């Protein structure tokens, strides 16, 4: 199926997100028949907390429909990059949506942008970027881990992203990016342990006309310090390092005992069993409660711009006259 265009009706081979609640979401491949451990072809039935779901029952349903489980219900949702990030199979640490949104914003991605990324990891960020730059843009993504690069490549293909994403196995710290991207990129993104070693290669990849953007994601401040030093040494400007954590709130109906109830005389312990308890006056209210253990750190995002290269000022003017 195609991850890059909304579709309405679920068909064999699609990926759907089974939504039970925000803590229970699963990406499922819509395949009516699968092989069991013994290699026999059997009907595909998924087990959930609320009972079984026969996958073939999803055919022809609209994305966004409610489906019945044997002991409850769920919704089948279209796999947006955000939902994919929440449900994808982890092969590495991944970048989550709050950071992804900032990365794409600070790299100024839009349809047509050419992006160079390393490492690919689990492809969480790659999926989001591909969605954002389509249909005319392209993501070139590199990972030095052969199996991971391979798996990612297969995933992009099965998600219909082959026209937008090129994935390759390559050690970018040693060998830089492919020659075919030289001078083509609008943006470079790095999420690997030694981003500072890749800065010179990033310059080669960025468009020579200047104004190209770079962003690095590093969990540790030591990496950030080395990266900033390297960026400065190589002439990048407008360095910014930022961290951003999303805080989520629950909205709940709650009640509290009032002052009046609390200040009543205590009930007499020796009284008759069926003495009528004075009615309690509780106050009902809507509470806004922050999550109890939110993520306290993900990574620092460092961004910078590659300035326009030195060029004799007249050159450009003459060219305009030729127009």
């Amino acid at each position, binding site marked *: 199926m195609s991850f*890059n*265009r*909304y579709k309405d009706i679920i068909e064999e081979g699609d990926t759907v997100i089974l939504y039970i609640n*925000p803590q229970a979401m699963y990406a499922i491949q819509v395949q009516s028949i699968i092989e069991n451990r013994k290699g026999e072809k059997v009907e595909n039935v998924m087990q959930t907390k609320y009972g079984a779901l026969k996958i073939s029952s999803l055919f022809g349903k*609209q*994305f*966004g*429909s*409610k489906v019945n489980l044997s002991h409850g219900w769920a*919704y089948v*949702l*279209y796999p947006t*990059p*955000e939902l994919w990030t929440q449900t994808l199979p982890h092969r590495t640490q991944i970048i989550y949506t*709050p950071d992804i*949104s*900032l990365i*794409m*914003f*600070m790299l*100024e991605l*839009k*349809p*047509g942008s050419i992006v160079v990324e390393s490492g690919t990891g689990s492809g969480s960020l790659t999926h*989001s970027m591909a*969605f*954002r730059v*389509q*249909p*005319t843009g392209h993501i070139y993504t590199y990972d030095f881990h052969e199996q991971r690069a391979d798996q990612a490549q297969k995933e992009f293909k099965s998600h219909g992203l082959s026209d937008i994403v090129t994935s390759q196995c390559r050690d970018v710290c040693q060998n830089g990016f492919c020659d075919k991207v030289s001078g083509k990129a609008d943006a470079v993104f790095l999420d690997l342990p030694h981003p500072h070693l890749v800065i010179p290669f990033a310059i080669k990849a960025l468009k020579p*006309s*200047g*104004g190209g953007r770079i962003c690095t994601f590093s969990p540790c*401040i030591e990496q*950030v*310090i080395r990266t900033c*030093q390297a960026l400065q040494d190589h*002439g990048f400007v407008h*360095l*910014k*390092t*930022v*961290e*951003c*954590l*999303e*805080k*989520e*709130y629950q*909205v709940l*109906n709650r009640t509290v005992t009032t002052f009046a109830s609390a200040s009543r005389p205590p009930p007499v312990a020796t009284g008759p069993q069926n003495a009528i308890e004075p009615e309690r006056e509780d106050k009902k209210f809507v509470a806004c409660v922050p999550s109890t253990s939110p993520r306290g750190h993900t990574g*620092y995002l*460092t961004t910078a711009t590659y*300035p*326009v290269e*030195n060029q004799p000022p007249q050159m*450009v*003017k003459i060219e*305009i006259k030729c*127009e």
Partner: protein
Amino acid sequence: MTATNLKNIITQGNYLIINKNETYLIHQVSNKATLKLGRDVIDLKASIGQPYSSTFKLEPIPEKKRHYTLVICNDNQARNQWATNGCGTDNKLITDDSSSQLLSTDEIIALKESGETGQNIVERLLENSKTFQLKTEYAQEKYLKKKARKYCDFLTIFKPTIRLVTDVLYKQQTIPKTIPIRFDTLAQILCRVNLDPGGKYLLYENGSQGLLQASLLNQLHDDGCLIHIFSSTAEQNALRAVKAMNFSESKMKQMLTVSLYEILNKRNELDIKEEKDEDDVPICSEDKKRKSDEAYIQVKKKHRSITSMDGLNFLKSNKFDGLIVVCREEPTEIVKTFLPYLSLSRPFVVYSAYREILVSLYAEFKTRRDVVFLRLTDSFMRYHQVLPSRTHPDVTMDNGGGYLFSGLFVEGTK
């Protein structure tokens, strides 16, 4: 020279982002091409025809107090740099009295008005400082940074991008008159609504100076479409951000504008009309055409939105891929009105500067059967100073990111 190259050239009539040290501003190059910056008057003519992201040196015009022309200077090495001559190891010898600078304020102003470059003025300030040599290396760096802010001889001209426009506007907006949208909040909105470049989006915006329209348009490919629903209480300068982006005419036509009033009042009228007699349509189609062109012209000339009939019809006959509500008014009814215009499994996102507003919206939506994945969030965002041996979070934070409420529209229970 190709068209794409031309797009990267500073052109008369275009909006630019002008950056001088730490100030950024949006500026349209007029015929006269002058820019007032504080008490300085800068002639921008020399920048026209140069590529964006170029840096220029300010050359004082002799005989004209505080007037400058630009000379292109993309050589990074030529930027303001001041030689220091040794430094102290700590600040124990430095006593804080106002006599450390030997030049008087009047003398400094006179220097500036005589057409002296910032480079030379700071050099004179350093020569005449009793304490500069005693300061530690770090303190000297800080001092020079402060002086550079005031006496910088260079400015850079950028092509407006959503990132730059967002930052400029954010600093200028104040609640409750207008709404300052911080860059990370805008970034989240674009992700929450799962922006598909070829999608159809419904936006209710009032108070962001057009930042939402501009960023959605910027993210749309040629086949994408945006309906902007506007309120009758729209602000002054409601399309500032849209204008700042120098969008092409065809890009602007991807946005149709419709007033909330007309949707609510004409919706029924149109339905009835269509049912009663179809002949009515051809008569007003000429009118429709005129009106939709008018909408575009209005945006360009009057900077004010008017309802286009195309927009109204489009709204009536389409299902949308996302709903965004960013406004000063109470959003509950707005969200409830437009939610049914979404296709299933599509997101909506609502911004408010006030958490209370979204809490009550959330409480109400929890009882609905046709929305899932409800989330109320804000963000903790801070910058870090990264310098050798002096890396730490910035000492002040910005708490103005506001709140977002979002969810997905799904099949309601029958």
